[in-house]
């Protein structure tokens, strides 16, 4: 390409064509809100629940375990043992403040079962709470029944928990701590990002191409510039829209979560205390140190450089193919049909990526991180597990070589496809256009 002066114009136009659309702006704002709602709603719902305390009556025929049922924010327990367990149904019907009645049988020590009655579906939280209360007391009672002094203390002291330290010997002979879980999560997030980005914006490229073709503007445009310029303008323009959208989301999520977080804490001073208490416990501190250790064991510079490379390579590879399919079809529905095999490959790659977290050095994982159509997704999962540099280099080189080849091929198909009407989409004609 000798003259690239028109490319920035086309990129700008393609960018604005999507980014200035109302639907784009709405979606960009709406999606983080939906995400927040998904996180925030369950929390809000529990808040609503604790608002009104439900009354639960119990009949304790054993005479020992009734006091084990302690009140919570959600439930208040009242003892109605004197009433006995006959005519409970009538009693319940005549008492309108009751939510449920629990009956603790006399032989609970051996039967280990209790019954709850209600005219409602019984809330899971109530079931859990009663279970927890009784389990503890019953266990204590059983331990005591052995008559061995200080048995409970012995038992708690004899509980063993193993801590795993994973050390990896590097080639330089150093020892390095590795944390598979955190590494896997980071890789998976980046891999998902690539997958979603390529799929979403690839489809956008395709619909943009088909739209220009169906409304015939393309003939005017290619009389002003080369088809390949138009195609690249589209791929780059749409890619920039994607990056722009992701940047907005990133910022919005940070802002929103900050506000949300502060709001949550300030609205509940006692909860803040609770959090502080929890944070001070040794267990939590251990988790935090482990997390930081795990995160620091991952080479982020390497991961992000590779992420950028795989991201760009994968987007170019698939984006150009999407453009080619878009140009070959007359109708948007034809085009999306034609891309099904491509999407299947991507889904497969994602599946391999997930499997890869279990075994990052397996054969399938290895091959899929070299094959260019799956490598942007699979390699991202493998990367945090210290993949040898030569493998990364080979994989990236193959990816970019293939991206260049598919772009050249797509440019050929695109050039012919956009000006040809009335041909039903077929693989055969597309192969012909390659010649």
């Amino acid at each position, binding site marked *: 390409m*000798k*003259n690239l*002066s*028109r490319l920035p*114009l*086309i990129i700008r*136009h393609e960018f604005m*064509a999507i980014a200035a*659309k109302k639907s784009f702006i709405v979606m960009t704002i709406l999606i983080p809100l939906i995400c927040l709602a998904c996180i925030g709603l369950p929390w809000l719902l529990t808040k609503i629940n604790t608002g009104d305390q439900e009354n639960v009556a119990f009949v304790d025929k054993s005479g020992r375990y009734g006091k084990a049922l302690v009140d919570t924010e959600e439930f208040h327990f009242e003892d109605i043992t004197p009433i006995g367990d006959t005519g409970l149904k009538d009693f319940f019907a005549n008492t309108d403040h009751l939510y449920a009645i629990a009956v603790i049988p006399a032989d609970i020590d051996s039967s280990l079962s209790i019954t709850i009655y209600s005219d409602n579906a019984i809330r899971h939280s109530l079931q859990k709470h009663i279970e927890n209360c009784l389990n503890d007391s019953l266990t204590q009672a059983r331990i005591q029944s052995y008559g061995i002094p200080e048995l409970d203390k012995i038992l708690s002291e004899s509980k063993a928990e193993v801590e795993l330290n994973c050390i990896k010997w590097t080639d330089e002979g150093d020892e390095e701590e590795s944390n598979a879980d955190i590494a896997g999560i980071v890789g998976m997030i980046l891999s998902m990002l690539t997958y979603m980005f390529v799929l979403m914006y690839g489809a956008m490229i395709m619909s943009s191409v088909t739209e*220009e073709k169906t*409304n*015939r*503007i*393309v*003939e*005017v*445009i*290619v*009389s*002003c*510039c*080369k088809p390949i310029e138009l195609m690249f303008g589209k791929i780059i323009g749409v890619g920039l829209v994607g990056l722009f959208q992701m940047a907005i989301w990133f910022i919005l999520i940070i802002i929103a979560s900050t506000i949300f977080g502060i709001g949550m804490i300030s609205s509940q001073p006692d909860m803040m205390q609770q959090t502080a208490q929890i944070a001070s416990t040794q267990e939590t501190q251990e988790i935090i140190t482990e997390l930081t250790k795990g995160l620091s064991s991952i080479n982020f510079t390497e991961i992000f450089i590779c992420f950028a490379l795989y991201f760009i390579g994968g987007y170019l590879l698939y984006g150009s193919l999407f453009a080619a399919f878009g140009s070959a079809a007359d109708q948007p529905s034809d085009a999306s049909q034609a891309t099904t095999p491509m999407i299947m490959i991507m889904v497969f790659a994602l599946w391999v990526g997930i499997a890869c977290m279990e075994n990052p050095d397996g054969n399938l994982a290895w091959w899929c991180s070299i094959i260019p159509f799956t490598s942007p997704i699979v390699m991202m999962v493998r990367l945090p597990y210290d993949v040898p540099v030569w493998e990364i280099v080979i994989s990236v080189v193959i990816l970019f070589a293939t991206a260049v080849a598919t772009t050249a091929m797509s440019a050929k198909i695109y050039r012919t496809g956009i*000006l040809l009407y009335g041909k039903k989409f077929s693989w055969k*004609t597309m192969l*012909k256009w390659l010649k």
Partner: protein
Amino acid sequence: MNFIEAKDVVKQYNGHLALNKVSIDVPEQSVFGLLGPNGAGKTSLIRILNMITQADSGEVLFNGHPIHESDIANIGYLPEERGLYKKMKVLDHIIYIARLKGMKKSDAVQTAYEWLKRFDLLNWQNKKIETLSKGMAQKVQFIATVIHRPKLLIFDEPFSGFDPVNAEQLKKEILRLHDLGSTIIFSTHNMSSVEEICEQIALINRSKVVLSGKVADIRRNFSRKLYSVNVTDTMQIDPVEGLFSIEHAEPSPMGGIMASIKIASGVPAHDVIAYLNEHHDISSFNEQFPSMNEIFIETVSNNQPDNIL
């Protein structure tokens, strides 16, 4: 001198020969008609002339040199199938196309305003194209075609879809651009507009140029020696063996008789006039040149595969 010239251009699509050694010469500042039935190869030729596609063989000379990418800034093309970015605003669309053609932004904006004013579309400049009527949208496309003041304008069926008033306005604008120095190529089936405005034509049929030259010359060459005669007396005009025959005769609404006569081959017209003058009171005597429409139909039907083989 020829402004654009195609020499032995061959183009093949998937085994179908779209252009078979097509040559046309478009003189500078002429109005050139590219005629032909549907599927003859006109659009294929136009796409090669404005570098949308490449010829398989043959060459295109633009202003004397082999056509180059930089020349497309000097070409304006209005395709038959009209297309616009429906979601774009009128002014934005025009400016985008103008800038793709290499205009500076300020220049593009200024010229766009001039054209919008000329077509009475100034109030629509910030409206989305999808809200425009068909006629207005076509005007927007016309503006986008000519805004960069191209030296060569190619119009593929420019008048289709226009009402007579707008078609007339469009024709005026095209001829004004011609007067300002642009060379114009029309691709059309509309033969009356060809007779009216084209100086030269090339007729393409079945991937080949089957007829080309000046419109006046072609019509003369296709002369069938048919003349229309009007006489003021009511005496019947009789055919004369070896001189002329009567194709058709009827009383004229103005009084007298009008007739269509065919002069025998080799007989000069003035002999016939002399004869008629002796017997009748002639009020007019004109040669009936075939219309471009008749020439088109005749040429194309003579050029059917049966006649070639």
